């Protein structure tokens, strides 16, 4: 009935609640219910895609996507796209939700948020905010080859930020925790303590000194090193970027691209914020080793890139009803055996960079830039002056090769990753890393 080579449909239905606390006062409570469908159709080498909101007609959406694909194929014919055949996914080992957030009253959520939010309001803090959010979604997938699957996922989390000010200077501190858990996230993490930590970081930074830029040896804390793993290595491993010629990791499978101390993994099956049992084109997920002991082992694949380059699909994701693209999940640098103290001793003089205010990467040229939350000068193996507004930049492959020590203290951090205008939940993590030379930027 549809004159296309392949089509699939994804229906997502669910609800999101978020509560925003600002300077101790509830600023917003928002409850959303959404339902929608995303439909892809493939004809020859051309994709047609439609998305529809609300009370849609799936058959109509499939026809519309098919018409787009057929029409594109007529107007700009090109090499046929092959989709890797897959079996229907088996949904097992799903995260167990102990306290379903939908069973807890809005009043209780509001009073909990107010209570822990209070702890950020310390002497010297000029403003605070805290957010709680939860979502509960059902995802249903089918394709024209008979693959079918469905799963439910609950995500909850909270974030707290505090701003300290003194004499026209402002510094911010932030803590957040998100996961594929229910309301028990508040049993797992002490939100009040984290609120105090956010305030302490902001206050501390008021007395920090601006950094002096230059090339130097550095130690990255688990959070910043995790951002490096995600931004610099993870994105460059996305096979769609490799295929379009935008990755420095093109043609490097099986080659040594990093210090032998470095192993980097992306694992969607981990019960962290980036979890999913099958991806947004029906592929079963599994743990994927990107770099093993310095050698590039695999890219991250969709069914299309896996068929083209050879590999295992399972990393194709979409935000809501968008068109799925190759994405990461839970990405981390695996533990080594070094201790932080040994790194300090080894480095002598340099800088310790802590936390992240985000970053960007140009995977084609293989360059990146991240801003750390703060840093410390390292002098004679000791942490001395606290530094603010410090950034790290460089070439991905140089930094990977300059890793001289890998800690044994892996820690994961949750966040959201943007690509192609779509945000998806992810985590990244790492133990402490010691890097023999990196470019540190400052004010």
């Amino acid at each position: 009935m549809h004159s296309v080579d392949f089509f699939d449909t994804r229906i997502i239905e669910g609800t999101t609640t978020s509560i925003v606390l600002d300077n101790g006062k509830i600023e917003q409570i928002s409850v959303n219910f959404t339902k929608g469908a995303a439909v892809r159709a493939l004809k020859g080498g051309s994709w047609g895609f439609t998305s529809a909101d609300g009370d849609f007609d799936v058959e109509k959406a499939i026809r519309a996507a098919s018409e787009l694909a057929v029409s594109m194929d007529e107007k700009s014919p090109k090499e046929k796209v092959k989709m890797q055949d897959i079996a229907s996914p088996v949904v097992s080992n799903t995260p167990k939700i102990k306290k379903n957030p939908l069973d807890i009253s809005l009043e209780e959520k509001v009073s909990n948020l107010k209570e822990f939010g209070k702890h950020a309001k310390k002497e010297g803090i000029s403003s605070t905010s805290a957010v709680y959010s939860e979502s509960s979604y059902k995802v249903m997938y089918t394709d024209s080859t008979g693959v079918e699957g469905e799963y439910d996922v609950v995500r909850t989390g909270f974030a707290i930020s505090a701003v300290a000010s003194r004499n026209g200077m402002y510094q911010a501190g932030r803590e957040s925790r998100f996961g594929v858990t229910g309301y028990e996230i508040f049993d797992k993490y002490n939100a009040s303590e984290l609120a105090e930590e956010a305030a302490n970081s902001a206050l501390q930074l008021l007395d920090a000194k601006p950094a002096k830029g230059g090339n130097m040896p550095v130690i990255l804390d688990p959070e910043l090193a995790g951002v490096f793993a995600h931004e610099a290595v993870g994105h460059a491993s996305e096979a769609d970027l490799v295929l379009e010629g935008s990755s420095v990791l093109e043609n490097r499978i099986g080659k040594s691209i990093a210090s032998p101390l470095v192993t980097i993994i992306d694992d969607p099956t981990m019960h962290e914020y980036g979890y999913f049992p099958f991806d947004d084109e029906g592929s079963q997920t599994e743990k994927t080793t990107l770099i093993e002991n310095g050698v590039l082992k695999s890219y991250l694949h969709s069914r299309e890139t896996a068929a083209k380059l050879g590999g295992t699909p399972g990393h194709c994701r979409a935000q809501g009803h968008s068109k799925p693209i190759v994405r990461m999940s839970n990405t981390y640098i695996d533990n080594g055996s070094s201790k932080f103290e040994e790194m300090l001793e080894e480095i002598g003089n340099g800088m310790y960079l802590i936390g992240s205010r985000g970053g960007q990467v140009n995977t084609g040229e293989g360059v990146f830039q991240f801003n750390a939350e703060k840093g410390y000068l390292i002098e004679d193996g000791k942490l001395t002056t606290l530094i603010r507004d410090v950034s790290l930049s460089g070439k991905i492959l140089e930094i990977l090769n300059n890793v001289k020590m890998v800690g044994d203290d892996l820690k994961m951090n949750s966040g959201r990753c943007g690509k192609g205008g779509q945000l998806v939940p992810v985590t990244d993590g790492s133990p402490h890393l010691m890097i023999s030379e990196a470019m540190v930027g400052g004010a």
Partner: protein
Amino acid sequence: MYDLAEKALKAATKYGAKEAEVYIMKSQKTSVNIQKDMIEGAKENITTGIGIRAIIDGAVGFSSTNIMSYIDEAAKNAVSSAKTQDADPDWKELPSNQKYPTVSGILDKEIQNMELDECIGYTMEMMEAARKTPGIIVTSGSFSRSHGERLILNTNGVEVSEEGTGISGFVDVITNAGETSTAYDFAISRKNDLDFAAIGKNAAELAKQSQDTISIEPHRTEVVIHPFAFSDLIENTFIPSIDADNVQKGRSNLIGRKDEIIANEKLSIYDDGLLEGGIDTGIADDEGVASRKTTVIEDGVFRSYLYDTYTAGKDGVESTGNAARNSYLSTPSVGSRNFIIDFPSCDIIADTDIGVYVNTVIGAHTANAISGDFSVEARNSFTIKDGKLDKPIKSLMISGNIFDMLKNINGAGTDVRKVGGTITPSIRVSDMSVVG
């Protein structure tokens, strides 16, 4: 749409809202994507959704849905969220019915009725223009056209209904011979007046010119900042500090600094919701306040924050028409409209003896939005020597503070660009730190 909105307002009132507002958005968008020198496919997205604000004694509850049979439930949720909160004495009221200005250049029937063939044609034009430069691959790109309608209704008599169109093109290219270099270009408009070939050509030529780089030593110098890089910096550092919400919450460097000189006396900045054909032009903002033009900086003097109705009520002033929403899924918050940077223009490169030219930056979102400090990686940058672009620079970090920068602006080009909502020429800033 109107009937649904009325139904939602009635439902919210029935459940106990003292005031209520309904925002309905409907949009239809077609896009064509390029991947590695090929048209990969086409997309059509149809979005319809409704957001309901229910207010009881200043406590605001919000609920949204795209399932029209859920409207009653959404209204009920919005009201019960409002009931969960304490009263807010700072809340005055929702905007009332008012006289709206007329605006022009935001709806183009050619875009509204554009067929897929034409969309493909423009996409090919961009790609082919890029490929005319030898040694260039178009890694990715996209064309899009959209048509949208919004309807805002509230219990104070506001009824705003407006439609508009948009069109845009973007390409990202890489060199495949010699030194690897990348570049991008994009353009966006409300009218079908974009030069798609120029987008492809500009990106390709820039990538080519950025080859055979040199390294430079860290120093302080004059930096000429392209509209792409300048708008990126200003949106992440300056605009947050004039947002009245940030000011009232103690998160701005401009608290209590109205009528103070904060910039070079030749610099003026306007926020204009009425600009002919502007990306953020409309008769009203996203809660139904009539659009207007606000002077933010006048001859170097800081004049006004940007307000929505709530923050204006708190300060006892009028809203500047700056309530903005990303979609029907969220309540309005303060956002800039068309943000116009005005400085006397000259042939800015020819006017610069020695310095650095920066096309784009990466990492502007990592700036400290309160203090205005930033440290970003500059891309496609060049040395300037004797009034000419000289050599491309391999890797460059620029860092500084937006408030120092505003004072140190000492020139602007004639190359005014609409970078989304920010409209700016290239800007020259003295004494910036560059690290090669």
